């Protein structure tokens, strides 16, 4: 890798970092400044971002290529509905509880799929997701195969007026996305992250100096589950209903997420953010293309893998001297 040291690229990176910081501030206050329809869209963006960050952590760093992360989104959605609607738990408290249930489901799931090597693990997670979706459709109190709506009282507990409600749900999604970014940042900066990055970059070299990533992989797999579960709860608050096919939607919570991360850049902190932005921009401007949308994204992501496997951020890094959010450790000049 050639080090780029032109002043212009340094300035550009500075500008990008400033824009990133400014965007965070603007987004934190979004309900005050944006219209209701935009707040709805931004809430959806934050939920998708959480899913993208989690998939990237697993596939890009922990060598766990999952095609079944919609399992935990669905479990979170159903658990949230169970706590809030069926067992009268406080709706706000039900969100972390949904995360806890997703974690509880992730433990046996991990024990099973970790018996498979990486290539087969992908489909193993898919089988687990399929089983959970079929099981969910057997739960009659949750509406069986066709699902059911969230009771109006629970919806109202997030705000009496529509504006208040949209703002409250937005801030929940924003907080979860911010927490996901922060946790990923500190995890990747930690000893665990260094081990994972070393293993990703050179497996034999990392193993030779004594890096053991078994524990790190388990930690990552279990760590992503509560985030996916809480995202499922927040998604349920947006959709206002649960249903096996929608809550456990592979297209919405896994396929699009994988494409977004691949396009943005697998294995970089910035990748999921860029990919999710690109996805929402495409969706706004290309409209609801339906099947063509997926064909387009599929072709685009295959092209990305063939041309620059580190995605759009990998392309940018050819011109920028450093990452937007530096997670690597630099040697101090002697």
């Amino acid at each position, binding site marked *: 890798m050639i080090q780029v040291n032109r002043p212009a690229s340094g300035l550009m990176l500075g500008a990008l970092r400033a824009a990133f910081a400014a965007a965070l501030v603007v987004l934190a206050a979004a309900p005050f400044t944006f219209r209701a329809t935009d707040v709805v869209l931004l809430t959806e963006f934050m939920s998708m971002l959480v899913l993208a960050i989690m998939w990237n952590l697993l596939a890009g760093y922990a060598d766990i290529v999952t095609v079944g992360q919609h399992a935990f989104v669905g479990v979170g959605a159903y658990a949230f509905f169970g706590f809030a609607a069926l067992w009268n738990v406080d709706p706000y408290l039900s969100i972390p509880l949904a995360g806890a249930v997703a974690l509880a489901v992730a433990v046996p799931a991990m024990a099973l799929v970790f018996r498979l090597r990486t290539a087969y693990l992908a489909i193993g997670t898919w089988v687990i997701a399929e089983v959970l979706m079929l099981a969910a459709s057997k739960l009659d109190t949750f509406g069986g195969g066709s699902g059911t709506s969230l009771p109006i009282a629970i919806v109202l507990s997030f705000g009496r007026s529509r504006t208040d409600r949209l703002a409250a749900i937005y801030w929940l999604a924003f907080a979860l996305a911010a927490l996901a970014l922060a946790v990923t940042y500190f995890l990747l900066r930690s000893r665990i992250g260094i081990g994972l990055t070393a293993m990703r970059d050179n497996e034999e070299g990392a193993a030779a100096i004594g890096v053991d990533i078994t524990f790190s992989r388990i930690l990552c797999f279990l760590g992503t589950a509560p985030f996916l579960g809480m995202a499922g709860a927040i998604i349920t608050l947006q959709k206002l209903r649960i249903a096996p096919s929608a809550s456990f939607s592979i297209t919405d919570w896994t396929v699009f997420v994988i494409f977004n991360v*691949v396009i943005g850049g*697998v294995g970089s902190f910035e990748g999921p953010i860029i990919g999710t932005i690109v996805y929402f921009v495409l969706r706004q401007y290309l409209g609801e293309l339906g099947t063509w949308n997926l064909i387009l994204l599929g072709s685009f992501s295959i092209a990305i893998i*063939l041309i620059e496997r580190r995605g759009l951020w990998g392309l940018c890094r050819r011109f920028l001297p450093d990452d937007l959010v530096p997670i690597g450790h630099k040697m101090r000049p002697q």
Partner: protein
Amino acid sequence: MAGVWVNQLLQGILLGGLYTLFATGLSLSAGVMRFVNIAHGDFIVLGCFVLLVLTTAAGLNPVVATLAILPLAFAAGFALQRFLLQRVVGENVLLVILVTFGLSIIIENGLLQGFGADPEKVSGGWIETATIGLGHDINVGLFQLMTFATAVALVAVLDLLLYRSGIGAKIRAVADDVAAADLIGLSSARIYAVAMGISFVTIGIAAGFMSIWTDFDPASGPTRLLIAFEVVVLGGLGSMWGSLVGGIVLGVAQSVGAQFDIAWQMLAGHIVFLGVLAVRPQGLSPKY
């Protein structure tokens, strides 16, 4: 009453034949070439749609149509491996998974765009409805029996091909160590492409039987992939006869599950798969 269960067991074993057909190609690519083609099920469904067009628009007999697509299937698999997958094969399985995953979504939505979401079926004529009575109210379909016989024959041929033939030895050499195989003068890229071509021939055969056996629609691919995958893992990775064992176990599990409650058919299959994975991760009949 016992007759019902014997019948259900028999139907399950025959269904296992179809599942073995789904799995042999995946067993070849996953167990021998060490990567998983996520688009495997979608390619089977694509084959079904090609056969649908050939039998309805071109008016071909389904058997003739299936035989006609086999050389095309080999060429398609060879080209896919040579020109696309070979560029991402390597230490990192992530890239192969992602490329085949992208292909899977493209095929599924391409078919949806072209044919719509309605279920389709290829008519097999009289073969489809002919049954053979075995006494005691137990009947087996002629077509189901033919499927099972084809599965056994295919497994036998592939096993011989892999473990008794020159090309099989080359495929296994490349699977064991690409660098060493290249070093002794084997062209690993070419051998991978041949293996993928063979895998696609099995996809063509599977499509031939599936298109007559059941309804299919553009979204049928993932279910077929999951079945094929479960069969391969149940049987033991890389073992051809294992996929017959895995296919029968899965077919019987689904068939017995369906006898309790039709809604339990798929779930029963998945649960047996996860159970075996938990207690015997190397599969029921491992090769190594």
